[in-house]
C-alpha cells in the first residue's frame, strides 16, 4: 500500500502562509453550512455575525481588543513554561488569585484615592498569581509532584477561596447577601485607553509583556536555558543548568502573567470582585499558547483569532439566532481546520515515488 508521508518543508512559502488560514476558514464554513441547513438557520446571517460583525464597527473591534488582552497576557506567560516542558495548567487559578489580590485594596480601602491605586492593584495581582503558582513549583521541586495535576487542582481551590471571600468577609454589605464585593472606586479602575470603549491600559501592558516575552525567549540566557531543558533535558543536565531553577522560573512567570491578567479584569471591565471573573481565560490561554506555536509573536495572532471567534460566536446567538451548541461546533471546526492547515504550512505530503520498473 502506498501511504503518503509528511515531510518538513525547508521554508514555508508565502502563498501557502496566506492560503492556509483562508482555506481553513473555507473548509470549516462549508462543513457548517450543512449543519445550518439542517437546523434551519440562515447561513449568510451566521457568517455575517461571526466573521464580519466583529469588525463592523469601532466599538465591536474594541471589544476584540478587550477580550484578547487577558488571553494574550496569560498565554505569553504559559508559553515560556510550555517551551521548557513545564506544564502549568493552572493559569485559571493564578488568574483568580490575581483578581482576589488586586481586589484587596479597594475592598479594604474603599475610600482611598490617588493615581497609585490601580498600578498597586496590578502589581499585587501579579504577585498573587506568582505566589499561587509557587505552591505548584514548591511541591514539584520538593516531592516531584506532577505540576499538571497540582496546578490544575489548585485552580479549583482558588475558586473555593473566591467564593468564601464573596460569601464571607468581602461580601458587599449593601448587596443583601449576594456574593460580590463592593463596586470599586474610580481610582481603582484602569484608565480607558480608547475613548468610548472599554479598552483600558491593560492592553498596553499585554503588548509590553509580549515584547518582554519575545526578548526573554530570543535573547536572554535564562530563556535559552529553559529552551534547552525543554528540548533535551539531558543536555541541560550535561551543561549544568538547574532543573529546579527552570521549574521555579517557568511557574513564577506563568503565574505572574496570569495574575496580572486577573487583576486587570477586575480593575477593568468587571469593576468589582464577583463569582464569575474569568470566562475560562486560564484554560483558553493554553489553546492560545499552542495555537501561536508557543512563539510570542504567534501568540499575538492566536489571541486575537480566539477573541474574534468568541465574540463572533456570541454575535451569532444574538443576531442570527444560532444555538450555543452550533456556535461551539463552528468554533471547534474552525480551530481544527486551522491546525490542519498550519501543519501543511510547515510540512507537505509526499507520495512514495515510483521508480522505473
Amino acid at each position, binding site marked *: 500500500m502506498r501511504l503518503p508521508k509528511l515531510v518538513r518543508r525547508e521554508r514555508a512559502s508565502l502563498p501557502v502562509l496566506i492560503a492556509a488560514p483562508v482555506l481553513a476558514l473555507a473548509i470549516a464554513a462549508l462543513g457548517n453550512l450543512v449543519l445550518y441547513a439542517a437546523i434551519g438557520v440562515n447561513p449568510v446571517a451566521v457568517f455575517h455575525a461571526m466573521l464580519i460583525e466583529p469588525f463592523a464597527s469601532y466599538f465591536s473591534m474594541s471589544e476584540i481588543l*478587550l477580550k484578547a488582552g487577558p488571553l494574550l497576557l496569560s498565554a505569553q506567560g504559559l508559553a515560556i513554561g510550555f517551551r521548557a516542558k513545564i506544564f502549568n495548567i493552572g493559569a485559571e487559578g493564578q488568574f483568580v488569585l490575581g483578581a482576589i489580590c488586586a481586589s484587596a485594596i479597594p475592598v479594604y480601602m474603599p475610600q482611598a484615592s490617588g493615581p497609585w491605586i490601580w498600578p498597586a492593584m496590578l502589581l499585587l495581582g501579579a504577585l498573587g498569581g506568582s505566589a499561587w503558582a509557587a505552591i505548584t513549583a514548591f511541591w514539584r521541586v520538593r516531592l516531584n509532584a506532577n505540576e499538571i495535576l497540582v496546578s490544575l487542582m489548585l485552580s479549583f481551590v482558588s475558586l473555593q477561596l473566591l467564593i468564601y471571600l464573596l460569601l464571607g468577609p468581602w461580601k458587599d454589605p449593601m448587596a443583601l447577601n449576594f456574593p460580590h464585593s463592593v463596586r470599586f472606586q474610580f481610582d481603582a479602575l484602569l484608565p480607558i485607553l480608547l475613548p468610548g470603549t472599554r479598552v483600558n491600559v491593560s492592553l498596553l501592558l499585554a503588548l509590553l509583556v509580549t515584547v518582554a516575552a519575545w526578548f526573554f525567549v530570543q535573547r536572554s540566557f535564562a530563556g535559552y536555558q529553559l529552551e534547552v531543558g525543554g528540548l533535551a533535558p539531558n543536555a541541560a543536565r550535561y551543561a549544568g543548568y538547574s532543573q529546579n531553577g527552570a521549574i521555579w522560573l517557568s511557574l513564577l512567570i506563568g503565574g505572574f502573567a496570569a495574575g496580572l491578567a486577573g487583576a486587570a479584569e477586575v480593575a477593568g471591565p468587571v469593576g468589582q470582585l464577583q463569582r*464569575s471573573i474569568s470566562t475560562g481565560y486560564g484554560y483558553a490561554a493554553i489553546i492560545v499558547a499552542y495555537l501561536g506555536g508557543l512563539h510570542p509573536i504567534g501568540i499575538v495572532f492566536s489571541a486575537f483569532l480566539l477573541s474574534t471567534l468568541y465574540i463572533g460566536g456570541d454575535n451569532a446567538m444574538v443576531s442570527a439566532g444560532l444555538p450555543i451548541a452550533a456556535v461551539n461546533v463552528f468554533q471547534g471546526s474552525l480551530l481544527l481546520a486551522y491546525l490542519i492547515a498550519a501543519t501543511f504550512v510547515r510540512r507537505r505530503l509526499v507520495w512514495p515515488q515510483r521508480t522505473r520498473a
Partner: protein
Amino acid sequence: MTNTPNRRNFIAGASVATMVAALGAQARAATADDPLIVTLIIPSPVADVGWGLALFEALETVNADYGEAMQLSVVENIYEGPDADRIMNKAVADGTKFLVAGSFGYQNGAMQIARRNPDVTVLHASGFMVAPNFSPFAAQYSQGTYLMGMAAAALSKTGKLGSVSAFAIPELITSLNAFVLGAQRINPDIELSIVWLNSWFDPAKAQEATAALVAQDCDVLFSNAQDTPSVVAKAEELGVYSFNLNSSMKDYAPNTYLGCVLTDWSPFFRASIEAHLAGSFEGQSAFLGVGDAVVRVVDWSADIPADIMAQIMEVEAGIADGSFSPFTGPIMKADGSEGVAAGVTMTDAEVIGMDWHVQGVTTPLPG
C-alpha cells in the same frame, strides 16, 4: 416600606395598561413589520429542565400571542461579567427594546443599559435595584416550598430532610427556611441539612451531594435551584423522595417524585410587555407568588396522605388570597435568637433580604 410595591398592585397596574394597550391594537398591527425585539440572556444553556427553560417557555408563550409583532431572541450560556455586558449592548444596538436579564449577576450591566437607553425596558432576575425602565423580578418560591415542607414531613421516616442548593443568596435561603417552617408545622422536631454546591449546574457534584445526604439519613430531598435533574434522578435511584423548582422533573423520578414548585412567568412577562408597548411601564420590584399565578405546585406525589393533602390545599388557598404567610412569627433563628416576634409578619423587603436560617437548619450558612 413604602417604596416596595405590593405584587397585587403591580399586576393590577399592568391590567390597566393592558386595557390601554387593547385600544391601540390596530397601532400594533400597523407596526407588524417592525416587531418588538425581545432578548433573553441567561447564564446556562436552555436545557430540558430548570430556570432557563422556565423563562424561555414563558417568553415563547407570550410570543405565540403576539405572532409577527414580537421577535424573540435567546442568548444562552453567557458568563456574568464583561461578556454579558457586551452582549446586552449588542442586542440593544441590534434593536432589542425589551431585555430579560436572566441572572442576578447581570445586574450592573443591565442597569447601565437601562440608564443609557430610556426606551428599552429591562427585567432583571433576583436583583434589588430599581429604575423607571428597570424592574427586578423574583418568585416567591417560599410559598411553594412551605407546602412541600408539609408533604415532606408527612413522608419522612427519619425526620431528616436534605437539600442540594446552588448559592447562599437570600432567594434560596428563603426557600429553604419556608421548607423547614412548613415541615415543622407537621413535625416540630424535623431537621434540614444543606449542601451548597456554589453552582447552578454541576451534574456530577449534584449527584455526589445527593448520595452524601442520603448517607446521612435524609429521606426527602430538595433540589434547590439546580438546572440539572441529577438530584432528582439520583434520589429515585436511592429510593428517597425529592422535589425541585421551576419545571417538572417527574420523568426523571417516576416513583419518588414529590412534586414541582413550578414557575410560570408568562403572566408577568405578558403584562410587562403590554405595559412597555403602551408606554406605561413603570419599574418596580416584582416579587411574585401563588396569588399571581406565577408560582404553582404541580405533580403532587400520590403517596402523600389524604389528610395532609387536605391541609396543604387549605394553606395554599390562604397563601393565594393573602390571608396566610409562611413568615409569620414566632420564628426562631438557627442560632437560637428570635427572628420574628409572635404575630408579626415579615414584609416582602425583609423576605427578599433574608440572610439567616430558621431553627431546624443544621448546616450553618457559608461565609
